[in-house]
């Protein structure tokens, strides 16, 4: 291949195969509103598959016939779609997306103050006790999942270590909510699980601290 051939193929790909913007109103939506959402849906499908095939749950989408994600995180709104984890005819837990939870540090301080912005953090996917509304407490979380479809760097590692800190205290291994997946035990109290899915193979360079603190890093590309 020559330089000119490579350049021509690049130009051809951009000009012929990359769809031009159309003229409908969707064009003015910034891509940041949907960026990463397809990956979030993909990770949710992987999590759902594990919850069904490994953990034996029946999964039921309620309040909509559409899987619905949010452009911005917020508290649990029970009129919003969610996935119920059902076993033996009853709902054992609920799966929500783009939800803010109240931090451990918030629970350790006085409870008379209304939570401030520093008192809650968001995760892309949360499994929590059934029947909650508003922002769940850190001790009401069974599983949190962060989905990253960007290059994974040290800043993101520090971010997730902070999330772990605000979910649980470091402890000797405790039994989790789960029978096998994602893990039966975690060195955390409360014994919530925390997963990071990333499209960047470099994420595994940052995985070692997760063994200490109970964070599982998973390299999971999304094929076009």
């Amino acid at each position: 291949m020559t330089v000119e051939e490579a350049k021509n193929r690049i130009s051809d790909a951009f000009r012929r195969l990359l769809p031009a913007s159309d003229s409908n109103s969707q064009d003015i939506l910034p891509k940041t509103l949907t960026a990463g959402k397809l990956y979030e849906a993909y990770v949710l499908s992987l999590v759902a598959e594990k919850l069904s095939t490994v953990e034996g749950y029946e999964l039921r989408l309620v309040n909509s016939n559409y899987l619905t994600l949010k452009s911005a995180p917020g508290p649990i709104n029970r009129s919003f779609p969610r996935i119920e984890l059902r076993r033996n005819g009853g709902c054992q837990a609920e799966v929500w997306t783009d939800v803010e939870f109240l931090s451990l540090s918030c629970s350790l301080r006085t409870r008379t103050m209304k939570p401030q912005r520093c008192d809650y953090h968001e995760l892309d996917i949360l499994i929590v006790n059934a029947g909650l509304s508003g922002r769940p407490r850190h001790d009401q979380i069974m599983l949190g999942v962060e989905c990253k479809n960007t290059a994974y760097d040290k800043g993101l590692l520090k971010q997730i270590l902070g999330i772990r800190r605000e979910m649980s205290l470091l402890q000797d291994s405790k039994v989790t909510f789960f029978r096998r997946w994602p893990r039966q035990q975690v060195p955390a109290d409360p014994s919530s699980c925390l997963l990071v899915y990333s499209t960047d193979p470099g994420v595994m360079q940052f995985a070692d601290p997760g063994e200490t603190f109970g964070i599982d890093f998973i390299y999971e590309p999304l094929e076009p």
Partner: protein
Amino acid sequence: MALSDQDYFDVLRHLQRELRMVEPDLYEKLSRSLEVQQRPRDILIRYLEAIERLVGHQSSGPHGRILDSLNSVVRTEGGGPILGIRVVLTEGEVALYEREVVDLATLPDRTNFIEALQVLRREIAAEEDEPEGEPA
């Protein structure tokens, strides 16, 4: 015939120019994470990979597969399949953009573009390095 380091930089610059014209935000994003200390061929390969990955996440291409995967294990209250994947906008976004949801199935399908870059990247990766000191 394998390209020289300068040739790979020439191709990379051309790629960056094309990207900046059609996706300036993506161009800026990738430029911030460019690791210029690597070999030029490796920089080009990683740059192509990053474009494929990030454009792919704005493509409706994987939408059908993801929906099928969800429907293999999740049912709606009515017992039927999930019909699609949507993003709900905030109140302020609804007022500004005059729409309440974005259906991810309506994203442009960029599968052919991504595959074209993938083929190019694999060919570049398969080329042997030009031995040092020998004529091209």
